[in-house]
């Protein structure tokens, strides 16, 4: 089992707030890792640390056998790490195809424009946006923009894909379609970390799940273990002892 990404004691602080404390895990190639936790748990911050947006002040990140702790996002993109953002930001003035070409040009294979256009068309077909290729990105609806965000990341031909809430804002049938797309991406051998609030989805597609709460990794395991872990339940539902205290005073 090849380890594609390894985090060792990754910590990040914003002023007085410890956003990440000692996050440590190994991600084998080809797996889907689900990253869950209550609001403000540090999930997107962890993506930003892995992705080089906010380098951690402590700890080490190893990607593809190389220490990339202080690497910039563009360097990581060249090495085969791509991500989507929770709030989609297409280049509105460009066509859908051109948006995806940007991913191919600045990704792992640094394609020239001709190849980039070819790759863009392949990827657009894969995510089901072929019929929209010549439209302006601004004219897409939310579900289509989420797919475009994914297409742009895929056009970079990544080894590792970081998906930040790709299901947020989608309706039930769009969610089902998107899940199928995520599973198809894994079939191509791409390793995935997904942040997701739609629990049903993340529990169904993940090989393994990590739960963050206040920047601390409170649990790790397969979906079944996670849903039965008292620490996870407490993180989501609150500490039951507090409620008992409140009732005792009656």
């Amino acid at each position, binding site marked *: 089992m090849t380890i594609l990404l390894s985090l060792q004691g990754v910590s990040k602080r914003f002023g007085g707030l410890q956003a990440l404390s000692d996050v440590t895990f190994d991600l084998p190639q080809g797996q889907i890792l689900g990253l869950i936790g209550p609001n403000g748990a540090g999930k997107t911050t962890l993506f930003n640390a892995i992705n080089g947006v906010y380098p951690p002040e402590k700890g080490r990140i190893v990607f593809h056998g190389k220490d990339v702790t202080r690497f910039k996002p563009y360097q990581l993109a060249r090495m085969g790490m791509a991500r989507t953002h929770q709030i989609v930001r297409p280049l509105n003035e460009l066509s859908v195809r051109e948006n995806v070409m940007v991913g191919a040009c600045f990704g792992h294979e640094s394609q020239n424009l001709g190849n980039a256009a070819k790759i863009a068309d392949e990827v657009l077909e894969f995510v089901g946006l072929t019929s929209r290729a010549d439209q302006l990105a601004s004219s897409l609806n939310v579900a289509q923009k989420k797919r475009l965000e994914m297409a742009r990341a895929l056009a970079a031909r990544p080894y590792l894909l970081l998906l930040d809430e790709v299901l947020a804002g989608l309706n039930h049938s769009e969610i089902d379609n998107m899940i199928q797309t995520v599973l198809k991406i894994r079939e191509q051998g791409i390793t995935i970390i997904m942040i997701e609030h739609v629990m049903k989805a993340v529990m169904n597609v993940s090989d393994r799940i990590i739960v963050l709460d206040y920047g601390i990794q409170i649990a790790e395991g397969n979906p079944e273990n996670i849903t039965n872990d008292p620490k996870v339940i407490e993180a989501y539902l609150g500490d*039951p002892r507090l409620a008992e205290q409140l009732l005792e005073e009656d």
Partner: protein
Amino acid sequence: MALLEVKDITSGYGEVQILWGSSLALEKGKLTCLVGGNGVGKTTLLRTIMGLLPPWGGAINFDGKEVSRLPAYTKAEMGLVLVPEGRQLFTDMTIYENLEMGASNQHARPKFARNLERVYEMFPRLKERHTQKAGTLSGGEQQMLAVARGIMADPTILFIDELSLGLAPVLVLQLFESLKQLRELGMTILLVEQHVHLALAISDYGYVIVEGKIQLEGPARKLIKDKHVREAYLGL
């Protein structure tokens, strides 16, 4: 008849639909809670009820009258009062001035003295510090002030969005104690709360919302024992 009835509300932001047909009813004098995971639409539902966000469909009836599309200021005047998430205090104004702002609607003004006495009794801290600027208070004190400002508006129904978020356990307990007092005074309250155990422990009735729809409801004391609540949260 319920004091407030929300029927099959759909709503969202721009083209993103968040609520997919949510219904709930608030009985007069009862404390009702609405719980659910991240991003399932709790705040959106509150904002829609308050008139801060227009409903796309469905109906909201208050005291037998349809109020679905009335603006927030009209609803505030009618006694629908929100304690917003993140408190939204006037941080450069004193505690007393914040409380005055709370009482700015027409029907609350004549009751200013009585309501002030009530909130000072409930939160002695606020009385002691009434000349202090709201921005200099601790998180717990700010949350007390946010609730107190809501009470100053002399609500018929008080809506509270995330009472305990970001507060230390001892402060959380204090705030829930005050909520208990309000309940004993017979106030009608809808509490949106991330701490499910506390919310259900204190409420008469509870709703669990999942992906923009009410998935479970019932007397709070029954829900607290219902394993489906945990399943709703963890997506089983």
